[in-house]
């Protein structure tokens, strides 16, 4: 409605905002430039605002290009079609406790949205961004639903966790994996994820204080939207074994036994068994995902998704099934002043775990058959004594172990959050945001074996009676954040200030029956872990001047229950600035340089995720049922004091990050370069203590420092951009150098246990070296280049070969990591692939070092050997196991994914599409490493990574062939 002409002519403008499929978008930010006026679109995409002539409306929304439209006084109905931001970075990026415009970001933040996600058989969420972000390394284990080692800039600790903080819809997740589940992300449906924000440097992560020292990954899930939209994704795939360890065939085996231990020939059988083939199968998996978006009762934007994933593992009997249901409701109340976000998720995970039998499959005598009708052990061949009972100290039949072991679990996870975002009526620049989150997993499982299994408990007379044990585990993580946000513009200055409070509590309880069939095993036991409570106060300001110069600062005061009240709280500040050079007059019209920004940031973070929750107290341990003593004829329960460190405190990480972001050549080439140096100090290390001074000879102390420096490069290039042909490539590169600069008392710490001898370690933490470096003897070779068994270099010149002649001979972490992704669409076809490369990572081949020696033919049962023994002719394992001969360069290039798809359109509804696709996962690996797979990551029983590079057989990854259909309505 037009008002009468006047100098301050005002009109009410209205319209609808839709996306390029014609669907309305609620929640689009509409602001009037140079004023405080603004509004958002409602759930139908409609808006209405009062404008004066000449004012400019700015429409912005995550994932779309901002559009500016000036009101010239004529058209009062302005409809806008938002265009997806295909090439450039999104306008708004999620950071901790809120979001920020891309322009104003001065830390190192990488945002990855759905269109950039990896394709293929994505079972766990971190696979979506594997290889996509420089500085972020994701090393996935084999096995269905397996977890990954996720590291941002290599992590910054020894004994404390190196895993980044993962925040899911505002709820920081615990790093504890519930017993019986595969990993902390395994129960989350990847199809529900809309975006990842990776906060890589301290200035970006400082807002998370005590939990941010290893970086932060913020995951946001898809929310409710207006018009009805249905997607259905169906996928089937088959995984086959791509590589196994080369071991002797039955005839080679027989010849070697004949040559070296002819007295044992009589024990060999007549079969020709390839044991590794026998333990694997072709694994079939399927995944079906249905998601519905729309307005419930015509009013309430909602999203519902249902997913069922059935994954078989390559090891026989191994499986992972997951059923998830997610609901997201996003009503707006009080004239858009109150935005409510409710996410409720339920996930059920059903697992059958297959024991790691690769070791037995490699060493099992190939002349013996898998099945033996005369065997009392379920008809499976086992080595038996003269009296017919299964021998001890021999390999057990790996096929029998897989088929006779029932190690199953089931877990229920309920997680979600309620987010309230209230814009004050009397002061619309001020908002109050409250987020309450809950994550609760209840899991339980059992391990049983029948009495016909040779792995069961040995009873009185030596007969086997099977196994039975059960466990259950409950993990609860609850959090509450509340903060105020004030946002305003004054002339050329922009200000956004955030201040708030955060509370989080972790509780854990578990129960284990221990071995029920063994009367001498420990009694069933309930363990209630100490609660961990984290409390933080934080504040952040973002200042901008003329939208070109940005200054950001944040501070956080954190406290955790694990430390002495005197040491409990610490301040974590950060400062950073950015200069959008391309907005300066001398560059504003350049077509060559469309965007150029330089950034610098400094921040401090803390780390407290160590296993010790109460070391600062003086505590006593009571002996458990099988750890008592006897006075006379009476059993007495003893007490002993426990290691105490009253001064235990934070690890502090300090980091400087410099970066450049650019878009060049008409936005065809965009990218960023970051350079950083981070120092981790007061590292919590489990290090020696003076004997007799405390109640152990080692324990956690804040001693230790290490420094890592690196450079990250990310480039996106749009090779072709035409109507029906589009080709985009992305290349990223990370190079990191790490060094331990200070270690308690200058003492080496041996780490990295290996098999092939009790208490053997192959890695060391040593000052001046990378953490977890390989620590071996230097092998000597003869004139023809063959290694001389047991001959090592006397590196310290003292004419004896002992522990002091070991040296640092390599490291499991790479010097350089690279990723390359290509996305091509031509008419209705799409073709994508991604490659990953790792350079400079070494692997210690423990498969060969503990097995490829002729002496192993003459053990209690003759053991099969890896074929490497034919080259080396080594005889005795202890003579060679600590040699650098087994440390190999495992640099590799891997083709992770190739997908080809075809999309049918032209249905009644414009937005409907049907896409058929096929794909190949783990297509090939190029490497010099002699083992099965150059990417070796080990996990402990809790699912946490214990490091890279020690290959003592791994769960193989296999090659996967996929077919799928995406239906979008």
């Amino acid at each position, binding site marked *: 409605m037009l008002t009468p002409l006047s100098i301050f002519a005002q009109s009410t403008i209205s319209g609808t905002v839709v996306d390029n499929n014609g669907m309305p978008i609620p929640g689009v930010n509409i602001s009037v430039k140079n004023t405080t006026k603004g509004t958002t679109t409602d759930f139908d995409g409609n808006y209405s605002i009062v404008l004066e002539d000449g004012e400019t409306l700015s429409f912005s929304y995550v994932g779309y290009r901002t559009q500016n439209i000036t009101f010239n006084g004529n058209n009062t109905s302005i409809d806008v079609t938002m265009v997806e931001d295909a090439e450039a970075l999104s306008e708004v990026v999620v950071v901790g406790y809120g979001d920020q415009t891309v322009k104003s970001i001065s830390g190192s933040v990488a945002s990855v949205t759905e269109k950039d996600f990896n394709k293929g058989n994505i079972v766990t969420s971190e696979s979506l961004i594997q290889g996509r972000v420089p500085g972020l390394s994701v090393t996935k284990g084999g096995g269905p639903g397996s977890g990954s080692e996720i590291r941002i800039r290599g992590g910054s600790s020894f004994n404390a966790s190196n895993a980044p903080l993962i925040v899911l819809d505002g709820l920081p997740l615990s790093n504890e994996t519930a017993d019986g589940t595969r990993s902390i992300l395994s129960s989350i449906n990847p199809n529900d994820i809309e975006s990842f924000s990776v906060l890589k440097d301290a200035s970006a992560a400082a807002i998370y204080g005590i939990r941010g020292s290893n970086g932060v990954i913020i995951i946001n899930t898809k929310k409710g939207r207006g018009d009805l939209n249905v997607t259905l994704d169906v996928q089937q795939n088959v995984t086959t074994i791509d590589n196994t360890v080369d071991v002797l065939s039955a005839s080679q085996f027989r010849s070697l036994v004949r040559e070296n231990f002819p007295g044992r020939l009589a024990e060999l059988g007549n079969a020709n068994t390839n044991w590794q083939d026998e333990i694997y199968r072709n694994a079939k998996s399927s995944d079906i995902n249905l998601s519905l978006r729309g307005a419930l009762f015509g009013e309430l934007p909602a999203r519902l998704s249902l997913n069922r994933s059935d994954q078989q593992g390559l090891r026989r009997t191994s499986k992972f099934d997951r059923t998830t249901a997610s609901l997201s409701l996003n009503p707006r109340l009080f004239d858009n002043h109150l935005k409510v976000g409710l996410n409720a998720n339920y996930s059920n995970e059903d697992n059958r775990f297959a024991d790691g039998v690769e070791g037995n499959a490699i060493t099992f005598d190939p002349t013996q058959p898998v099945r033996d009708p005369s065997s009392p052990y379920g008809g499976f061949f086992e080595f038996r004594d003269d009296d017919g009972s299964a021998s001890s100290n021999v390999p057990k039949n790996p096929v029998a172990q897989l088929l006779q072991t029932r190690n199953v679990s089931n877990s229920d996870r309920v997680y979600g959050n309620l987010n309230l975002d209230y814009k004050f009526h009397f002061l619309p620049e001020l908002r109050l945001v409250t987020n309450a989150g809950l994550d609760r997993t209840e899991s339980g499982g059992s391990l049983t074996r029948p009495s016909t299994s040779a792995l069961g408990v040995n009873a009185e007379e030596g007969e086997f009676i099977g196994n039975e044990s059960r466990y259950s585990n409950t993990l609860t993580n609850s959090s509450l954040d509340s903060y105020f946000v004030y946002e305003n513009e004054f002339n050329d200055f922009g200000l956004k200030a955030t201040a708030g409070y955060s509370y989080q509590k972790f509780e854990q309880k578990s129960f284990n029956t221990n071995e029920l069939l063994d009367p001498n095993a420990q009694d069933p036991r309930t363990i209630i872990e100490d609660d961990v409570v984290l409390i933080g106060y934080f504040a952040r300001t973002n200042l901008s001047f003329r939208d070109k110069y940005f200054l950001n600062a944040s501070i956080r005061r954190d406290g955790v*229950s694990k430390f002495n009240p005197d040491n409990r709280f610490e301040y974590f500040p950060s400062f950073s600035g950015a200069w959008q050079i391309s907005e300066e007059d001398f560059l504003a019209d350049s077509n060559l340089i469309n965007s150029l920004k330089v950034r610098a940031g400094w921040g401090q973070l803390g780390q407290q995720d160590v296993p010790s929750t109460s070391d600062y107290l003086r505590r006593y341990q009571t002996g458990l049922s099988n750890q008592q*003593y*006897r006075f006379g004829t009476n059993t007495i329960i003893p007490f002993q004091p426990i290691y105490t460190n009253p001064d235990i405190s934070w690890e502090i990480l300090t980091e400087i990050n410099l970066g450049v972001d650019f878009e060049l050549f008409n936005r065809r080439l965009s990218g960023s370069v970051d350079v950083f140096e981070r120092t981790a100090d007061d590292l919590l290390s489990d290090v020696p203590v003076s004997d*007799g001074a405390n109640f152990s000879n080692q324990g956690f102390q804040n001693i230790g420092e290490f420094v890592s420096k690196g450079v990250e490069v990310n480039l996106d290039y749009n090779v072709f951009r035409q109507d029906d042909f589009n080709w985009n490539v992305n290349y990223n590169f990370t190079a990191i150098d790490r060094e331990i600069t200070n270690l308690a008392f200058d*003492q080496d710490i041996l780490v990295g246990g290996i098999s092939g001898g009790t208490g053997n370690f192959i890695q060391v933490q040593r000052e001046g070296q990378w953490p977890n470096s390989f620590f071996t003897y230097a092998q000597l070779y003869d004139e023809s280049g063959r290694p001389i068994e047991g001959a090592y270099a006397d590196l310290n010149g003292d004419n004896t070969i002992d522990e002091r002649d070991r040296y640092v001979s390599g490291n499991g972490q790479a010097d350089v990591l690279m990723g390359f992704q290509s996305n091509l669409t031509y008419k209705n076809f799409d073709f994508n692939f991604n490659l990953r490369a790792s350079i400079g990572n070494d692997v210690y081949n423990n498969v060969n070092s503990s097995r490829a020696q002729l002496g192993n033919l003459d053990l209690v049962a003759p053991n099969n050997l890896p074929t490497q023994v034919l080259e080396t002719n080594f005889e005795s394992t*202890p003579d060679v196991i600590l040699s650098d001969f087994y440390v190999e360069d495992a640099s590799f290039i891997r083709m992770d994914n190739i997908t080809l798809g075809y999309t049918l359109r032209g249905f009644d509804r414009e937005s409907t599409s049907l896409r058929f696709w096929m794909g190949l996962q783990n297509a090939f690996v190029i490497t010099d490493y002699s083992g099965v797979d150059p990417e070796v990551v080990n996990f402990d029983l809790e699912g946490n990574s214990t490091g890279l590079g020690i290959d003592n057989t791994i769960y193989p990854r296999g090659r996967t062939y996929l077919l799928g259909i995406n239906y979008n309505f």
Partner: protein
Amino acid sequence: MKYTHYIVIFLVSAFLFTSCESDLDVELQDPNITLADDIFVSVEAYEQSLAGIYANLALSSLTDPGSSNIGGLDPGTGQYMRGLFNLQNLATDEVIFTFENDLGIRGVQRNSASPENVLLRGVFSRGMFSVALANEFLRQSTDELLESRGIGSRDTIQTYRAEAKALKALSYYHLMDLFGKAPFYDETTPPGFTQGPELSRTELFDLVESLLLEAREDLPAGNSGEYGRMDQGVVDMILAKIYLNAEVYTGTPRYAEALAKTEDVINSGYTLVDNYQNNFLADNATNGAQNEIIFPVVNDGQTVQNFGGTTILIQGQVGAQEQNGEDLGVNPGGFGGLFRLRPQFSEKFTLNPLFDNDSRNLIITEDRPIDLDIPDPNTGYITTKYSNRTSTGGFGSDRTFTDTDFPMFRLADAYLMYAEAHLRGGGGDLNTAVDYVNALRERAFGDTSGNITSAQLNLDFLIDERSRELYWESHRRQDLIRFGLYTGNQYVWAFKGGPSTGTSIDNFRALYPIPTASLATNQNLTQNPGY
């Protein structure tokens, strides 16, 4: 709008009311962990705390046999008695271990251990841990604290304090014997990170002696203490040991005092059990051996489980080809043939056909060559001395963890010590000495066919006889050093110093090196010469 106000109030309250910094003081949830301030509520609690010091001789942790409260090596290897066995027996002619790729084994069994050797660290740390536990007990049982906690029965507590002092002395004695020095800590220093001053061997000797004499006053007389606990008999035995070895430890011989103390022990009411092997069976707490064993370290297959002590000895004795675990009360295969005998030891029983009738000869020689090829577990003879079977042919309570208590000190040892102290000029009577030796011979042979004459009693005889009687009881290295046979080339055994024929080793090897980690964490400690 009304509703707005309500919402604002709700949100702001939510903001304020959750400011609970007191939540940071979490309570300990594990029912098996208690705050030090809350645990000493009764005399029984003090007894349990005392039991914790004893338990450190047998257990590697209080939670399970696979855990350890000291770090740097695996739990079984870090167990107290196993550590002593490794350093006192494995380093001599009495035994060899098959798996030299187990960390630290090669250095110890070939007498070439370096300061980085983890087995040494295990013993040093475990021994000092006993000292720390004893000091904590003394710290918690001062009169002031007892008063403030309302604890009565002061006499009983006084006895407990004496036991703690005796246990502390025992561990310092072990460290003095093996390493020749140790850091000094007592109950006046609160636990934490202090670096105690170094005690030289002579200073350690004086400290051990004074602790034992002080403790002795409050301990039950003679043999009257409960089985497994300290009494005057045990204290006298330790004193006898340190006096007998005084020339090695301090340079000053004290054989007269050694002889006197040995007599005290012998007159304390101990008696030899009829069957030698009863001392090493699952029921040695009840089959008569309890009267011969002066101080046992208790083991039990159900309640005192650990991977050291007699568990490792018995499991390790099982022959790889014999699979005779059942005869020893464990699973047929045992742990795969860990321990075999070196030829020089075997010959003490096998060279002279006289010893075919010696019940201490528990060696299996059939189908085995006497000479050793270390990695081949079927070379070298094996023994069946320790067993998890009972004196009536029954089995221990578990097939993995054994019931057999470890006899740290036995009356038989005191008899031989008397004879030795006499021969070294400590006084006493030659005929008494011969009678004592013959008492052991009669027990071993069942008759007098093995008895010796006084002309046959000399030091060369004694060193061999000690081995025949006391092998694998953690005395050998100490004995060889005292007789001047450990270092040098007077007595060479297979793999001594490295080569299969054995060779001379340097004199500085009579002391083990102080572990590198121990040196690094305590600037007051200095390394032993030669390392």
